């Protein structure tokens, strides 16, 4: 977000920014002026020398000649050196000039670039600010959407709560209904049982039941082999279950006084007695019979 921060600065401190830009421009101008004011190198000056020839004794001449020659050579050398130096100086000047031109061109290019960049920056800034505006707009839209959604949800929640309440009420009602039904059923059953009890307690039924008991009693007495040790005062309770055919299904000994042989004998008696006699009426049949053996 470099750009962002730049634009941030522009946005929040535009004065500083413009001061900075102005300073840059001043510096730039100073630089340009200084370059254009520097001295231009002078054009090289051509020097032409006249030779003066004199003949002398050969030897002397020669010597003179040599001397002249030597002097000539030295002179020549020096001239050459001086020319060389001049050439070097000229080259240097030329180079300096070229460098100045180059620098100026660079500076121009840099300025052009700067300008170009400024334009580009300006363009970017505009785009950015537009983007920012768009973003802001979009955020507003999102916020609106969010609020709309929230509202929708709260409506939904309310609806759900109402439904839940309705369901609970229905459930309660059902439980109530079942309970009432059970109570009604229990009452009905109780009444039916009372009715049946009345029936079973009727004198006719009592007579039938005592007949049945007598039948069983006689039958079991025939099957009970009293052990030698059985005596008055002993007693043994044996509970049995039978099926409709009189078959003894289970034998459970309850309270039993007397010895083991006595207990075994009564258990054996009820097992030996299977199947037990048929009841005189279906209504007096009972799956459970409680025997009390009392010799």
């Amino acid at each position, binding site marked *: 977000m470099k750009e962002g921060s730049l634009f941030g600065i522009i946005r929040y401190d535009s004065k500083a920014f413009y001061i900075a830009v102005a300073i840059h421009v001043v510096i730039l101008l100073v630089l340009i002026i200084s370059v254009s004011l520097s001295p231009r190198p002078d054009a090289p000056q051509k020097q032409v020398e006249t030779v003066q020839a004199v003949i002398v004794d050969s030897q002397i001449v020669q010597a003179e000649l040599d001397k002249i020659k030597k002097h000539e050579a030295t002179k020549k050398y020096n001239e050459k050196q001086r020319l060389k130096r001049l050439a070097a100086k000229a080259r240097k000047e030329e180079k300096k000039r070229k460098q100045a031109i180059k620098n100026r061109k660079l500076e121009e290019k840099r300025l052009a670039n700067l300008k170009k960049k400024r334009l580009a920056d300006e363009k970017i800034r505009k785009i950015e600010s537009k983007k920012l505006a768009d973003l802001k707009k979009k955020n507003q839209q999102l916020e609106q959407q969010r609020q709309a959604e929230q509202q929708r949800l709260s409506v939904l929640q309310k609806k759900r709560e109402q439904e839940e309440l309705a369901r609970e009420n229905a459930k309660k009602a059902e439980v109530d209904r079942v309970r009432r039904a059970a109570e009604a059923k229990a009452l009905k059953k109780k009444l039916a049982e009372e009715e049946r009890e009345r029936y079973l307690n009727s004198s006719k039924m009592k007579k039938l039941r005592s007949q049945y008991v007598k039948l069983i009693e006689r039958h079991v007495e025939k099957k009970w082999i009293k052990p030698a040790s059985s005596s008055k005062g002993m007693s043994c309770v044996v509970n049995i279950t039978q099926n409709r055919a009189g078959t003894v299904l289970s034998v459970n000994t309850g309270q039993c006084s007397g010895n083991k042989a006595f207990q*075994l004998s009564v258990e054996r008696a009820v097992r030996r007695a299977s199947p037990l006699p048929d009841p005189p009426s279906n209504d007096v049949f009972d799956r459970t*019979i409680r025997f009390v053996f009392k010799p």
Partner: protein
Amino acid sequence: MKQVLIIASLLLFGWSLSAQAVLDVEITQGTEDALPIAIVPFNWASVEKKPDMKWSEVISSDLLRSGRFAPIAEKDLLSRPQNSENIDFNTWRVGGVDHLVVGSIRPAGLNQYTVQFQLFDVFKGEQLLGYSLTANLSSIRRTAHHISDLIYQQLTGQKGAFNTKVAYVSVTRSLGVASYKLEVSDADGFNSITILTSTQPIMSPSWSPDGTQLAYVSFENKRAQIYTQVLSSEQRVRVSGFKGLNGAPVWSPDGKKLAMTLSKDGNPDIYVLNLQSKKLQRMTKHWGIDTEPSWMPNSETLVFTSNRSGKPQLYKMDKAGQRPQRLTFDGDYNTSPEISKDGLKMAFVFKDKSGFKIASMDFETGIIDILTEGPLDESPSFAPNGSMILYAEGQRAALAAVSFDGRFKQRLVAKEGEVREPTWSPFLK
């Protein structure tokens, strides 16, 4: 709260209803039928020679004799399982057998055997007894009787008396010379041994309550005298040699006294000899004949035979011997009283027009049961558990036993000559 109440009332209601719905049947009467039982022949689990005794026969015969059991004859056995795994209880149940005994014997050293047996309740399909016993060759019959005792006790609740002894007098005559023997045998008449032999009469043997001694009357000195004899050592003591009759010795249940009949003071009366102090106490003093004393369990009170009413009848005296109370009023001849060990019953000889019979009287009810047919039955003696009465069949000269209720009679081993005055031992240790 309301619901709790409803549930509670329903529960209570249901409970009271079901409590009422149970059929209540009270059983006060039963039968005295014999218990059907099958004794499967014991398996001999060895290649060695089998000892010559059929265990199942000895046990069956014991149980049969008691009158309490109806053992299935060996030939009628439905199957012969040798151990519990092979038993099909249902088959036996259908066959009407209530109990089943299986067993096996195997050698366990020289003349030693290990006997195992199990008693099963067929209806329950359960083992009621299971024992492993050791026997040696000379005691195998006793071991078999012991097994009978264990079975008997388990199923009747009463101690078995098969592994006990009987003493009696046998008389043989050859070439006009009588030989009297005092013998002791197993309760089934087997394994008899002779305690005393005499050319003169031996009478009235009586066991000491610990079963180690016999008291008896011997005429070896040409007149009746009373002796006691230790069975193991044959050591004899003459305890009574008064002039006149010395007869009918009977050991008191506490073993301290001997009741007897003496005529030293004129006619026969009942006396009690204290065996420790040797003091003699006269118990009856009457012009009639008083004899055959028998002790009540308290070792104080005696029942005896007396003809003081003109005919022999049974009387019971109090501790001091005062005011004897007549016990028998039926018939004109009641003799030889013997009181059961629990003191609730009395066996005696009852005579009616068809002869002398063994009868019993229940002291509580006074009811008399005639147990045998006669015509010459004598000397009743209770088994120590009261379940049987041993007596002599005078006509056949045999030892016989009758169950206490007369339902089952069996002659024991028949003897050469006569058998007189059998008497059953107490329980032996």
